[in-house]
């Protein structure tokens, strides 16, 4: 099973995402923003970082990169696509996901180990969770405030497209505490926090039983592998 990770100019977490994919048991494939080629991968991850220095709007310029034509085509064919942080912003800018992101309401960059509730465990990236599960993965962003108009919020809430919600603390002022959303089909998911940073004991978020022991992010990738295995 081959999962591609696209590197854009200014991507930071592409290698962490590749490592997470390897730890989950799949083969990571490095993809380049300037190519028109997904190398026949089974799923795609758009990683975090600050593509193009967040110029214009976070993710805006990357959403027009050459490879995004292939990503949009793959997404419309049902290929699992995950956008993490800057990748989420790109998917929203590319209109593959609803809503948009603005500067955090408190104007500051924030980094914390963030508790989330899984609101939809039927997407391609959440099937190994149960709806209602609470997980902890790191969050780090400046432009993480999820916004959409009232009609869109009502529609995605009604459709089950709100996949993750912030618990205890809303770190950026996101509407309805929304941390992550999916498209209607459930194959494209985006979220602000970083599952790839919670995949290996000793390097994850602090958990009640031990420091840096959190590995809740692993199930994002095993979910995609299960979704692909079920389809094959």
């Amino acid at each position, binding site marked *: 099973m081959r999962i591609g990770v696209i590197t854009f100019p200014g991507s930071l977490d592409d290698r962490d995402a590749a490592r997470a994919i390897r730890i989950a048991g799949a083969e990571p494939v490095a993809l380049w923003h300037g190519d028109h080629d997904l190398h026949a991968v089974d799923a795609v991850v758009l990683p975090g970082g600050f593509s193009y220095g967040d110029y214009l709007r976070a993710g805006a310029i990357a959403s027009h990169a050459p490879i995004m034509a292939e990503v949009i085509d793959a997404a419309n064919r049902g290929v699992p696509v995950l956008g993490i942080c800057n990748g989420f912003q790109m998917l929203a800018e590319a209109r593959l996901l609803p809503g948009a992101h603005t*500067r955090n*309401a408190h104007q500051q960059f924030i980094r914390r180990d963030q508790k989330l509730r899984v609101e939809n465990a039927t997407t391609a990236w959440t099937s190994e969770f149960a709806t209602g599960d609470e997980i902890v993965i790191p969050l780090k962003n400046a432009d993480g405030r999820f*916004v959409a108009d009232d009609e869109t919020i009502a529609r995605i809430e009604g459709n089950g497209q709100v996949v993750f919600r912030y618990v205890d603390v809303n770190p950026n002022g996101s509407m309805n505490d929304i941390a992550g959303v999916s498209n209607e089909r459930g194959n494209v998911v985006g979220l602000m926090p970083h599952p790839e940073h919670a995949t290996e004991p000793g390097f994850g978020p602090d958990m009640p039983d031990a420091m840096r022991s959190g590995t809740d992010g692993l199930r994002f990738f095993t979910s995609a592998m299960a979704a692909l295995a079920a389809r094959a």
Partner: protein
Amino acid sequence: MPTIVVEVMPKAEILDPQGKAVVGALARLGKDKFSAVRIGKRFELTVEGPVDEALLAEVRELAEDMLANTVIEDVVFVGEASTSSACGGS
């Protein structure tokens, strides 16, 4: 060379934290007659040839598709910069 100006503002209902920070700073300077500040963007697109209606239409489309994200922003102005009001010519 002719310049086409595109102005983009955050939608009225979208929180503008930058504007809020500025209005807070104005209040601290004693300028408390200003109740709100909103910050937008101005793009200046320089073109080689003449500006005609077809080009302006193309820029309007570009403004909606890329220069602004219409989920959170409105394009409030697209037009040719008049030479008399052009600034920065010193």
